[in-house]
């Protein structure tokens, strides 16, 4: 782990039914940085994110977040780390039996860390976050009443409720029209700028990658095959890399 990196992954491997999805990969995330992990569908991008937050257990390797080994640590420590991470799911993953308002308050109401926080303060934070993604008017709607883009924005607003230091975005623009995709990409930049978060954005959307990335890593067949800024990657002569720019 470098002296500055807040996430350090080394030699991480994960296989499903003997098919290697991640094959001894290593990765660092620096404070305040937007790192885009680019790869085709099924390349293992989501698996990588899920390993980081303990939703999947890797077969081999190390993941250190805030200098803690999240694979070997106990459940309480993992939960403590999770409160410092915001995870934006591909489809929003809003709890569909409760309103958007309750979705937003859900993580705050159920974390011992916030038991002493006054409800007024939580409500105020909820309103601020919903306003920042343009959904304040939809506060009392149920998730089923929201469009795909609104669900993604709501998922982002909910992930921000715990004031995370790291954001993980799983395909934030997948399935959206170009206007909404641009809006989500702008929101990712706004979050980075205003909240000072470091982010890992997994995507196969080049337009999104161009807008939000400080650095890009390309994942192909379980390995990182290229790393650098958008311009560096664009200039690469590797056919596996240039494929992302030509298709």
């Amino acid at each position, binding site marked *: 782990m470098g002296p500055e990196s807040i996430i350090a992954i080394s030699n991480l491997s994960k296989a499903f039914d003997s098919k290697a999805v991640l094959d001894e990969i290593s990765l660092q995330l620096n404070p305040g940085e937007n790192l885009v992990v680019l790869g085709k569908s099924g390349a293992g991008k989501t698996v990588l994110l899920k390993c980081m937050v303990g*939703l999947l257990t890797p077969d081999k390797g190390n993941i250190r977040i805030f200098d803690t080994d999240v694979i070997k640590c106990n459940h309480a420590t993992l939960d403590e780390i999770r*409160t410092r991470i915001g995870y934006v799911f591909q489809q929003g993953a809003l*709890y569909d039996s409760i309103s958007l308002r309750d979705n937003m308050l859900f993580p705050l109401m159920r974390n011992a860390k916030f038991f002493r926080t006054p409800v007024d303060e939580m409500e105020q934070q909820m309103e601020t976050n919903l306003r920042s993604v343009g959904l304040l008017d939809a506060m009392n709607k149920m998730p089923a009443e929201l469009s795909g883009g609104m669900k993604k924005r709501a998922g982002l607003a909910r992930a921000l409720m715990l004031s995370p230091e790291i954001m993980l975005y799983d395909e934030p623009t997948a399935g959206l029209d170009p206007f909404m995709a641009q809006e989500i990409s702008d929101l990712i930049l706004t979050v980075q700028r205003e909240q000072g978060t470091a982010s890992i954005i997994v995507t196969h959307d080049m337009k999104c990658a161009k807008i939000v990335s400080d650095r890009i890593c390309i994942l192909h067949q379980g390995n990182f095959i290229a790393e650098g800024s958008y311009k560096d990657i664009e200039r690469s002569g590797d056919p596996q890399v240039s494929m992302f720019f030509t298709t």
Partner: protein
Amino acid sequence: MFIKNIEAFLVELTDIFRFTGLFFNNLFVKRFEFDEWINQLYKTGYRSIFLISVTGLILGLVLTLQTRPMMADLGAEAWLPNLVFVSIIREMGPVIMALLFAGKVGSGIGAELSSMRVTEQIDAMEVSATNPIKYLVVTRVLATTIMLPVLVFYADLIAFLGSFLGMKAYSNISFPLFFSQAFDGIYFYDIIPATIKTFFFGFFIGIISCYKGYYANKGTEGVGYAANAAVVISSMVIFVIDLIAVQITSLFEI
């Protein structure tokens, strides 16, 4: 193939026991989800009343109408209310209502939790450091454990009314006479073991349905499978528990 099936069955049984352990581990964790529990009591209890009422009424009515000719031939028509009521309280009420409950509530829980699993809602709870077992499983299992005995008690009363209507269709029996004939041979040992087993029925319907839903996979296909498996396994377990309950009751000769 046979060995593999046995192995898969034993693995699943172990997983269910482990899941039951998780339920008890989280049962007394601080900040009980009271609002969600009340919500589940409403969903599992109040929303089942119509189904339970209709079934209970028909159960009492049909049992009476089918048993009456035989009892009349034996000249024992006066024992009919008691015979029907004992069979309802001891066996028919608890088992039939538990099967209905598994079909309605168990499949609902299995489908709800499995769709939460495949749409990553359970993952979202975990990554926000909230405890999905406490919020989703503890509240639902406690609701089914408490509501099923209440619903069975209610169904017994409705079946009693259905039985009276069945008697009334063929005779001029008054309600006080029917009441005294029905309750004449009813003792606490008819009611208590039957009530205790309904708690177990409710508990296992809740645990099995939550287990099948919580660990669902394979996308939308998994949702259908979880709902179906919740009903099938719960129904089978109801009969197994019933068999064990009969053995225990016989053991104590009550």
